[in-house]
């Protein structure tokens, strides 16, 4: 059973949307702890609910859309009820937690750490703005792993 489950999601063929995958690779290199599981995926699907139900803490890593690019944000995620028609094949973190609760009666504490992207066009590279944020993103995830009661925060790393 993973004490901490890290789920990095996004499309690595869409430039900054793949920032989670790059952070996940670096976390795998830096973390040697059998109780910490790191997953990467294109989108959140209901199959993840049983993995989430086995974790004590879940950290989602995602790219966000907005202005200005270069914002690192940590938020609590609470499970929310579904809304009509909202579900087909993919979920957002809050609804995935709700799915875990409905199916397994366990919805662990969860956080989402996001980086505001600059370019979501076709490509496998990050923009320089977002690439410069990756070390802070990785440090932020490690802090979330090790802090007993993390607090939501917004950090600005504007170029």
């Amino acid at each position, binding site marked *: 059973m993973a004490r901490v489950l890290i789920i990095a999601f996004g499309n690595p063929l869409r430039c900054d949307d793949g920032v989670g995958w790059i952070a996940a690779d670096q976390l795998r290199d830096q973390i040697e702890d059998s109780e910490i599981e790191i997953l990467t*995926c*294109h989108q959140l699907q*209901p*199959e993840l*609910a*049983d993995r989430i139900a086995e974790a004590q803490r879940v950290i989602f890593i995602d790219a966000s859309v907005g202005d200005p690019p270069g914002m690192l944000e940590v938020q609590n995620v609470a499970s929310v*009820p*579904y809304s*009509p*028609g909202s*579900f*087909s*094949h993919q979920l957002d973190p809050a609804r995935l937690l*709700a*799915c875990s609760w*409905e*199916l*397994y009666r366990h919805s662990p504490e969860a956080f989402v750490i996001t980086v505001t992207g600059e370019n979501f066009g076709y490509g496998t590279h990050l923009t320089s703005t977002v690439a410069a944020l990756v070390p802070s993103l990785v440090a932020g995830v490690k802090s979330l792993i090790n802090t007993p009661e993390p607090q939501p925060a917004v950090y600005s790393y504007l170029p």
Partner: protein
Amino acid sequence: MQTIVIDPVTRIEGHSKITIQLDEHGVVEDAHFHVTQFRGFEKLCEGRPFYEMPALMARICGICPVAHLIASAKACDAILAVRIPETAEKLRRIMNLAQVVQSHALSLFILSAPDFLLGMDSDPARRNLFGVAEHSPSVARDGIRLRKFGQEIIELLGGKRIHPAWVVPGGVSEPLSVERRDTILREIPEAREIILRSILWFKRQLENFREEIRTFANFPSLFMALAKEGGGLALYKGWLRIVNADGDIVADNLDAARYQEFLGEAVEPWSYLKSPYYKPLGYPHGMYRVGPLARLNMARHCGTPLADQELAEFRELERRFVLSSFYYHYARLIECLFSVERIEELLHDPEILGKHVRAYAGPNNYEGVGVAEAPRGTLIHHYKIDETGLVTWANLLIATAHNNLAMNRGVLQVARHYIKGRVVPEGMLNRVEAVIRCFDPCLSCSTHALGQMRLQIQLLDADGTVISEVMR
């Protein structure tokens, strides 16, 4: 005349709408299932090297990329003119079977189970996985576990769940390790138990859906599927066979590479989805069905013990060929059982760990056709290349397209049965959608397009005015 429009159709793979036309007396006159998305992979692949085609074609769909990988790789095998190593063929078979499990699990437990458990007339806001989880969490958990079982096998073999690039022209790119084989084998018993109890659960539901069974695309038609020596269920290799509603063989030993001789491809102005038909009977009389129902109707046996027991019971449903498309769901569960049993058999095959998994060659033919049974039915990829190996022409015949004529007729049958007059209860419209879900159409595949999962139903009056519309 009035028209009902359902736009978009929900809980299917892709974007479509349904229009139902009423006459001046409010009686259903006609109905159409429109596929409203388009991307055109057949054109965008022109000019690409043929050996890129499996990876490129897998991008058609995120649900059943493996089917496209396999049909595409088989078309490329034909261009190379190679016989792939035995181990490679067995490994491809395992991945194909794993995909059948995960795709069928999605169709049954996530897209259609809300109707079975909550009822066709239940609140549409609850007809989704969350509604299923609230009503019967064990069923929802089983569906998720089963889908995960299939996806994990695909990931273990191909390196990732979606769009694995492991199936390549000439075989597969990597052999199977002992560790990965044993990991899959450890998961088999749980998957088998889930399917067995799901079959029991589904059989108990049947009594509640007698009217739907009677009216959901329940009519005589041709059926087409791959066939093989001995009459067993064929999902990877074989020749094409076409049978009629009485089980009589209409055409046999058909070489898929010559599909254009016996299959026509009609197009209608109101849909991007083409309508294949059996040429000797013409259009639209040459309508046929493919997929789990066609395969089980045609197979004398599955070839694995538990699936054969279930097939024997399935055969008793209508005392001859099973014609109601509602039973597609039932057939999916039996195919899941077969797939799990067959995966286990293949993993115990001493050759499965062989290291020789790819045949190498340059292009030796200017043309190649690949065929396989995808979860939704027969899938055909056909490519032509120039002397440098670049693709000059491609044609894809997708399972959902084969079923297009039958789906349209099914929509009309359900609409005529359930819709009486201008006021149409939501549950009636849901049944119009549900008949489409029986076929589990994958519209992203069938139009090779990228789309949203949406549904629209429009009810039009005698002069074409929209008098009722549902959009979800």
